[in-house]
């Protein structure tokens, strides 16, 4: 099993930390992982993305240009990465702020209204974990119990009290995700 994932959105949405939690969870489960950020003169409000690979084998290139899964959190990222999903792959997007929905018919497309729902529930800060939950519903590349392990390792000690909130968001995300184009 090798899962090559891109997570892309605005800086400040928790794109990099979502990737980090996913990578850490995979590592805790004994898988090979890599986390490659788009680093640069990026700032809150600019675009940010991270490639995460989770595999049972030695990972060749952490730098990839075609993905099994794209998790898309804004229009710019959808424009950039829709075409980079491998045929038969998966695209998950949050419809908030999306004016041109994905058009490809050769990939699985799901949407998750995490921005809207997390705000309604007063959980805006764990919006990213809701999206992660949605992804794990469709592709359980990491087992549930290791998400908690991943959170423990990637969050600073002083934030460990927020782990239940994060796990709650993951559970909500699993309920929220819905198919748009399912092959």
């Amino acid at each position, binding site marked *: 099993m090798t899962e090559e994932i891109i997570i892309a959105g605005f800086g400040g949405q928790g794109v990099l930390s979502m990737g980090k939690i996913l990578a850490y969870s995979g*590592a805790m489960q004994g898988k090979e992982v890599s986390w*490659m950020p788009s*680093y640069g003169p990026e700032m809150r409000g600019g675009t940010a993305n991270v490639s995460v690979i989770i595999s049972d084998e030695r990972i*060749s*290139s952490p730098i*990839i240009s075609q993905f099994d899964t794209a998790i898309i959190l804004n229009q710019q990222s959808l424009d950039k990465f829709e075409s980079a999903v491998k045929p038969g792959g998966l695209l998950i997007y949050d419809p908030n702020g999306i004016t041109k929905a994905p058009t490809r018919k050769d990939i699985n497309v799901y949407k998750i209204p995490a921005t809207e729902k997390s705000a309604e529930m007063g959980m805006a800060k764990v919006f990213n974990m809701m999206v992660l939950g949605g992804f794990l519903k469709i592709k359980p590349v990491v087992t549930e119990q290791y998400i908690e392990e991943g959170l423990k390792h990637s969050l600073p000690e002083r934030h460990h009290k927020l782990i239940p909130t994060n796990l709650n968001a993951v559970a909500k995300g699993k309920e929220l995700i819905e198919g748009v184009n399912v092959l």
Partner: protein
Amino acid sequence: MAKELKLMKGNEAIAEAAIRSGCDGYFGYPITPQSEVMEHLMAEMPWEKTGMVVLQAESEVASINMVYGGAATGKKVMTSSSSPGMSLMQEGVTYLAGAELPCLVVNVMRGGPGLGTIQPSQADYFQTVKGGGHGDYQLYTLAPASVQEMYDFVFKAWDIAFKYRNPVMILSDGAIGQVMEKVYVGDYVPRWTDEEIAKNAPWAAFGKPASRDHNIITSLELDSARQEQNNHRFQAKYREMEKNDTLYEEIMCDDAEYVFVAYGSCARIAHKAVQLAREKGIKAGLLRPITLFPFPTAPIKALAQRVKGMLSVEMSAGQMVQDVKLASEFKCPVEYFGRYGGIIPTPQEVVEALENKLIKG
């Protein structure tokens, strides 16, 4: 040795390894994409754990000269920078080589020339292995291709640096510096005591007992006959490195008809390209130089005698390809493919280049 699993950026792994390998001092000046080296050191506060000094100098020039000073006393000292900062350090680097001082220099390369870009590049290959500073000197140069190697090579660097009394370079790039991967870290190796320094670095200037002459650390020798002797000694040392400490890795070369030659992050990309090429029925392999000096000349020559062609894959405009051609002794066609200025080639592009330049060509 107990091994602990961590997930770290390449830059953080360098810093963590420095602390755990008994490094005495780090002197540096921040520059993207390697700033996490000093950030991690400052966050870990090793001066409270191991006594290691971490100092942000006023410039790269100051950093490398602090390394010179520390190394002269037999301490394990290091600096790190990225391409423009490395250019500033070149005078210090050649002085270190000329004074035969062991130390570790880490270059996390970014795109140039000039101030260039902060994105990954491998365009400092020539600077590192063909000079950089003036004079006939060589840096033992390690090219890590994973975060684990970023960690492991710091330990390796001290062994080599003190074995040969020579600066060691870890030549990395922004991609390996920024990527986060699994790392197994080991126990803390204690810093050398004064007695151990006296034993392991008897040439160092750590205080003169009455029982011996002065230990003099200098790269200056105005008597040309003696300076030629010094150079003979340096060259003999470099030949020993070539003989004993050349490192490389072959991936799927046994039945390969075409071989990529790539180091660092490009080796990772080329490894993926090997997999993609084999899915298409092309018998591809990868030779990964782990040391760039000494360069794995012999295995490249051996491969050149039996493969149909080699492709040097680099994030530069074609630098290492010159050494691959020389090593191949032109027994097979050698071509180059690369992207530069901060652009990373994709595995697909590498396969296309192989097809266009060597298979169809």
